[in-house]
């Protein structure tokens, strides 16, 4: 089989577009989609200058998604002094698994000469996920604790590193799963929040795509430039470009519902190529309409009595959980 663009030997068939692509044309296609998303979402503000660059902190786990995102953004902006990239890696205290992916992060950061920060749950909260998963005082899936801790660490360190944006490596499969889960859970307010939190473009993009998010004062704004690229293509890109991605599943992975939705989507994609793309195309428009409808509601967040984080309770979820697992937020360095 031959590449539809250059006639070279094809390495993949993108069923949703019908294209067969060779190694080089496939890699270019992935890079092009990431750059187009960066442009369409208006990630580079008009007022960024070499003297006052926009700082992007990338959540760098060492898995294929964040490694591919970091590499493509580095290659795109290496010669552009308006953008500064910082890799932020979190060690959750998962022996073996995270040790290997931290090594992948260090290797990538060294290869790219990228500023790289490493933080851990142990230093932040005095806990390790291996112990949390074993003790499980709240009777929840390990991912439910870990997700709350990770969000807190990412947000605090993004602030500390003076980030203008926090970027994560969510791919098309991740986003289509989230979209479907929000829809099936019957939660339009969550869909609206999804739009303002990460799907909508920044002000600078208004006019190009028409879908600008509302600015949020409380958190460093997030973006997901890899969200147009299917998971398989991200992995294939990492493989073909010999990137130091750590490809192993977390030993505590337990998001049963997300897994079920993921399997359903793959079956649909098999029989109806393009399903994930069309879900996201429609969902983004619905999410924008939902955001318009629900904005300005009673979302006045107070401050957590313990850590000062925004919350609508006396104590935020993170402090509650840290307490439940026998940790200590005062373990966090100033």
């Amino acid at each position, binding site marked *: *089989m031959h590449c539809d663009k250059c006639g070279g030997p094809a390495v993949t068939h993108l069923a949703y577009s019908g294209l067969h692509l060779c190694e080089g044309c496939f890699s270019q296609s992935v890079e092009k989609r990431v750059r187009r998303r960066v442009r369409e979402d208006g990630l580079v503000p008009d007022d960024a200058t070499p003297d006052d660059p926009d700082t992007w902190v990338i959540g760098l786990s060492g898995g294929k998604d964040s490694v591919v995102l970091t590499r493509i953004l580095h290659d795109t902006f290496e010669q552009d002094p308006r953008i500064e990239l910082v890799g932020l890696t979190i060690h959750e205290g998962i022996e073996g698994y995270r040790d290997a992916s931290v090594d992948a992060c260090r290797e990538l950061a060294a290869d790219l000469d990228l500023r790289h920060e490493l933080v851990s749950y142990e230093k932040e909260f005095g806990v390790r996920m291996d112990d949390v998963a074993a003790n499980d005082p709240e009777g929840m899936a390990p991912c439910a604790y870990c997700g709350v801790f990770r969000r807190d660490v990412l947000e605090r360190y993004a602030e500390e590193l003076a980030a203008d944006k926090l970027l994560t*490596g969510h791919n098309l499969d991740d986003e289509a799963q989230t979209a479907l889960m929000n829809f099936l859970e019957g939660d339009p307010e969550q869909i609206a929040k999804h739009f303002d939190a990460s799907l909508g473009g920044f002000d600078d993009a208004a006019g190009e795509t028409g879908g600008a998010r509302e600015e949020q004062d409380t958190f460093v704004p997030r973006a997901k430039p890899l969200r147009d690229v299917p998971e398989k293509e991200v992995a294939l890109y990492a493989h073909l470009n010999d990137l130091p991605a750590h490809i192993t*599943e977390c030993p505590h992975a337990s998001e049963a519902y997300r897994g079920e939705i*993921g399997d359903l989507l793959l079956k649909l994609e098999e029989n109806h190529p393009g399903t994930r793309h069309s879900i996201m195309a429609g969902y983004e428009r619905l999410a924008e309409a939902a955001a318009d409808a629900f904005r300005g509601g009673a979302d006045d967040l107070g401050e957590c009595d313990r850590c000062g984080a925004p919350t609508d309770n006396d104590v935020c979820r993170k402090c509650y959980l840290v307490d439940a697992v026998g940790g200590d937020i005062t373990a966090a360095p100033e």
Partner: protein
Amino acid sequence: MASVKVTCEVVGEGIEECELSADAAYGDLLSELGLSRHEATVLVDGSPVPADATVAADTVRVLRLIRGG
């Protein structure tokens, strides 16, 4: 119809023998292994091959994708 036998090394998991119809594609081989073509790639001589290409190797490696970044 004639069939072909293919030895598949699923990376990190083990080796399996598959018997397929002579006109089967690599995507059919993945199905035979219980994998979706959206979660795995077949490698022939170390290079990925399109899932809709007809099987033309008697030994392949299968690279599984892992959920979660």
